[in-house]
């Protein structure tokens, strides 16, 4: 019988711990498949974040680091400077990258650090139980914005892809979404381009991925995908913001 699908060997056999309808599982697989397709498994390392993807090091069949909250780009910098001929990516959520780790991500881009960042934007803190993130939409209810995010009180959501694309050192910056099969395919293509930018030593590369968090959004998986499409994509436009 012909094999129509095979799990990439870049993923381990450890079952994911994610909630039903979570986007992390999809993105883990896309990143692993890209690493396999580019033939860089033996030359690649990754940095797991603090957040729901904290156990990424159990799932990826490559050398891995676990970084403190927000520090993954600095850790990846240390690895890359020691092994400039190897490849490294960070995998970060919106609390990690867009809040506590803004200095690290901005300066990794600013240095043109030859690393790749996978940025999961689900507009909420997942692991700690649904608190407001810098990316939480206006009016969105979270455990620390129980009446909905009030821009007078705590500003409007931050657009990371647009911001990082203004930095000279960034080589490839894109925003994708997981809300449909075509968009998931586009996400994989963007991840591949981001790694290719690193392989070609062009500079810093990042793919921001709009991803559902049904548990903390208080929605069923299907409703969450619809909510992402109806609310997140209008505020966070998809596309490639920079390609050098």
């Amino acid at each position, binding site marked *: 019988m012909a094999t129509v699908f095979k799990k990439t*060997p870049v993923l381990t056999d450890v079952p994911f711990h994610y909630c039903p309808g979570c986007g992390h599982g999809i993105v883990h697989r896309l990143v692993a498949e890209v690493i396999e397709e580019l033939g860089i*498994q*033996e*030359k*690649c*390392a990754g*940095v797991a974040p603090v957040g729901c993807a*904290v156990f990424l*090091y159990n799932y990826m*069949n*490559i*050398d*891995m*680091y*676990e*970084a*403190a909250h927000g*520090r993954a780009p*600095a*850790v*990846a*910098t*240390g*690895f*890359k*400077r*020691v*092994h400039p001929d*190897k490849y490294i990516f960070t995998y970060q959520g919106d609390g990690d990258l867009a809040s506590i780790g803004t*200095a*690290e991500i*901005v*300066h990794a881009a*600013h*240095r043109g650090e030859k690393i790749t960042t996978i940025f999961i934007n689900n507009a909420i803190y997942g692991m700690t139980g649904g608190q407001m993130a810098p990316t939480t939409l206006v009016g969105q209810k979270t455990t620390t914005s129980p009446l909905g995010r009030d821009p007078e009180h705590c500003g409007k959501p931050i657009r990371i892809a647009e911001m990082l694309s203004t930095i000279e050192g960034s080589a490839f910056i894109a925003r994708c979404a997981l809300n449909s099969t075509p968009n998931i395919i586009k996400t994989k293509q963007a991840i591949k381009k981001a790694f290719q930018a690193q392989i070609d030593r062009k500079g810093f590369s990042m793919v921001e991925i709009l991803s559902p968090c049904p548990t903390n959004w208080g929605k069923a998986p299907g409703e969450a995908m619809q909510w992402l499409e109806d609310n997140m994509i209008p505020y966070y436009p998809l596309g490639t913001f920079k390609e050098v």
Partner: protein
Amino acid sequence: MAKKLMKGCEAIAEAAIQAGCRYFFGYPITPQNDIPEYMSLRLPQVGGCFLQAESEVAAINMVYGAGGAGARVMTSSSSPGISLKQEGISTIAGAEVPCVIVNMMRGGPGLGNIQASQGDYFQAVKGGGHGDYRCVVYAPSSIQETVDLMPKAFDTADNYRIPVIILADGLIGQMMEPVELHMNPNPVLPEKPWAAQGWDPKGTRPRAVINSLYIETEDLDGLMTRLNARYDVIREKEVMVEKYHTEGAEYILCAYGTVARVCKAAVRILEENGVKAGLVRPITLWPFPTKEVHEVFAQESVKGGLTVEISNGQMVEDIRLAVNGIKPVEYMGKGGSVIPSAEDIAERIMQMRRA
């Protein structure tokens, strides 16, 4: 090699390079800027990498990344900057990654001043960051001793996979002294099969996971047991202490770093005045020379001791724990970067003698 007149910070940087350090990540702060400045010129000449980080927090995490990748790596800073690094130092300790951290102590708390201080003893010796961990802490009292300790610091870090702190006061960094460097253009470094370097699924080396997260209770307990066993070996094997004129002494001065040199002058003044005095100088602040200090104070001749520090009294607590009440131990010093003179120290001993 002939002796060369060098500034402390530059001598430390060159000694690190000769010890095989090829990576430095840091952030400017007075009074230690000569270390990153020196490294920025020298490391590229020896095939290494210097990087000025965006913050102390980033710098120590770059150290974590490079140390976890198997490199000999160092950072340096001064007190407020070392406070910022504590999250990373705790991570590095928990992830069992070797590295060397130089702290050229300045006055605190807060921004304090930029003069020499010993106010970071507690931070370096008792923890600093959160959690249950130790760093090996060397406290040199001269530039030559600092230079001599650098290869040992890197070896200790590698042997025990532990962060090592060089705890020096700003005077060590800023003064110039004749120094003999140990030139070693091709240092032989230990293999680090545990490091992240790219993993071959068909090879024999297990996949590297550089990590301080142990979510299951029994797993964290496993780390703690492993670290504790290692700390016990370090306590047994790595203690360094200098005893100066302590045999048969009547009064024992206790000091580390530059202050210990002033204390040696005080010992000589006292001896000229017919008072037998000695000095115990811990070179490792952790592991602390508890047994050695106790033995000195246990001598029948000893009437008491005086700990002298450029702080409001921090090491004195460990001295008293070591002495364990068998003899009185007094404290002398000031927190605000005021260094007592040899005459003042000798006079204080004379007062204790009269009391």
